[in-house]
């Protein structure tokens, strides 16, 4: 994949990075990205990204797990009936436990799969030039395209330790 052109600013302070992101967005830069060692709330808020689409997928999977749990218990009880003291063959209260466990299991497995898929796709589509410091103690703010000179000025003004053009 060809590398994108843009400007990268390196910040020691997440609050400074968040200020830079806000200023860049106000100045009309639409494609501002960041790389950080932790999900700093102020930075995430400044970037203004929508909520992850995991919600629907995971909750749907949990609901399927619940239904699968009941289906498994009721289906197998009918297929192999254990008649005990006139009790109902498909007795729902104990089956709630299995349904609960399967809803958690299926929900968690689908959550993991969705996270891996979405994170890999996001990494591919919205790349930030990687620097080993960004997983340690520095925050990188990358401005893709747009007016590079203006972006450089805004990043320096916000307190970037280092600003460079990419590639």
């Amino acid at each position, binding site marked *: 994949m060809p590398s994108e052109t843009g400007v990268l600013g390196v910040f020691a302070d997440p609050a400074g990075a968040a200020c830079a992101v806000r200023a860049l967005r106000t100045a009309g830069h639409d494609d501002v*990205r*960041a*790389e*950080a*060692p*932790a*999900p700093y709330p102020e*930075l*995430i808020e400044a*970037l203004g*990204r929508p*909520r*992850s689409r*995991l*919600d629907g997928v*995971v909750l749907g999977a*949990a609901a399927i797990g619940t239904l699968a749990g009941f289906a*498994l*218990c009721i289906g*197998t*009880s009918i*297929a*192999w009936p*254990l008649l*005990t003291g006139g*009790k109902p063959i498909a*007795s729902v209260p*104990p*089956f709630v*436990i*299995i349904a*609960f*466990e*399967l809803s*958690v*299991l299926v*929900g*968690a*497995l689908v*959550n*993991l799969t*969705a*996270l*891996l898929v*979405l*994170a*890999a796709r*996001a*990494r591919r*589509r*919205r*790349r*930030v030039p*990687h620097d*080993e410091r*960004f*997983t*340690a*103690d520095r925050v990188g703010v990358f401005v893709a395209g747009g007016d590079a000179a203006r972006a450089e000025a805004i990043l320096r003004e916000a307190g970037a330790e280092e600003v460079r053009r990419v590639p």
Partner: protein
Amino acid sequence: MRSPPIPARTIQETVLATQGRPGWVHSILILVAAAAAALGGWCWSLQIRYGMGLSGLNRPVAWAVYITNFVFWVGIAHSGTLISAVLFLLRARFRTAIYRVAEAMTVFGVMTAGLFPIIHLGRPWFCYWLFPYPNQRHLWVNFRSPLVWDVFAVSTYFIVSAIFLVVGIVPDAAALRDATRGMRRRFYAAFALGWRGTDEEWRHYSRAYLYFAAFATPLVFSVHSVVSWDFAVSILPGWHSTIFPPYFVAGAIFSGVAMVVTLLVPLRRALHLEDLITTRHLDLASRVVLLTSLMVTYSYAIEWVLALRGPPGLERSILIYRATGDYAPLFWVMAVCNCLIPLALFSRRIRTAPWVLLAVCLLVNVGMWLERFVIIVTSEAHDRIPFDWRTYRPQPVEYGITLGALGWFFFWFLIFV
């Protein structure tokens, strides 16, 4: 008092310093743990070869040390998810210094617990019969049995806890990948799963982590409730009680957090992590131990109140037997370790003195193992039919397998650290 924030670079350098070659003490401990696990494996092989007669299990005590170990290790496994998920949802920031150790302990605790229902089987090679699967005889497991609920609860708990641990490690592994070279870099890269730390990755990660915590929180409470139903759903005096689920969950958190403290105190000293895992963290964790100790004490008291307020009968008889019968010394050691000794944690001086705290938490774990033993064995040894009463004594293979389980747990934990 809160200590000033430590710079991210210092945290990374301190953690990196722990990732070097293990020292000779660490290596010897791993060998000792492996030897204990091997001894346990050998004892189990004897039991498979010569049959369950080698153990002390006999009518009417069919559940004893193995099921005690199962309940104990499932309980130990509880604190990890409590600290990871419940304290995450409650935004308790002190968890950040200790949650990785607790999560690892959870996974290794469940790996240990999961062995015991299989060891307990007369024909362990048929353990797959516990799971429902289509077969030529069209037989299915009985979903109305608490033992099958247990299979689902413990398996789900193991899988979700392992996912929680692995997902939590991803950003840390990426940091270690970027800070190392050569083979170690490749090793950490395998766990980092290509993580770079972009805002898009964090966006999905934060949401997914919230869901893992939301799933794991009810799971913490459900797993030990299900374990308690193994007993409470039966009609044996001393087991058939509606207070068992909250009583067992409180006990599990009590022993689990005590085990976290037991592991953390020597670990922070050996790896020079005193600045990251401070006495404040130990203080807050030991408050959880104190709170759950009070809940466990309350549960013990309620058992007695319910038995003494009702008509004289089996329930009262079994409780009096626990306190005065063959197992009375174990009962009283249990009461001292679980109810009296933790009261020392009301003192801030003790909560912030790591080695005293370690001694208290070790005794709590002894007490909690005895609690499970007393509950399980006394009810069976002294059931409804007096001619059937018998005193159970664990046999050498049971001691060997119990020691082996301890070795198995510490082997994995020492490799992890």
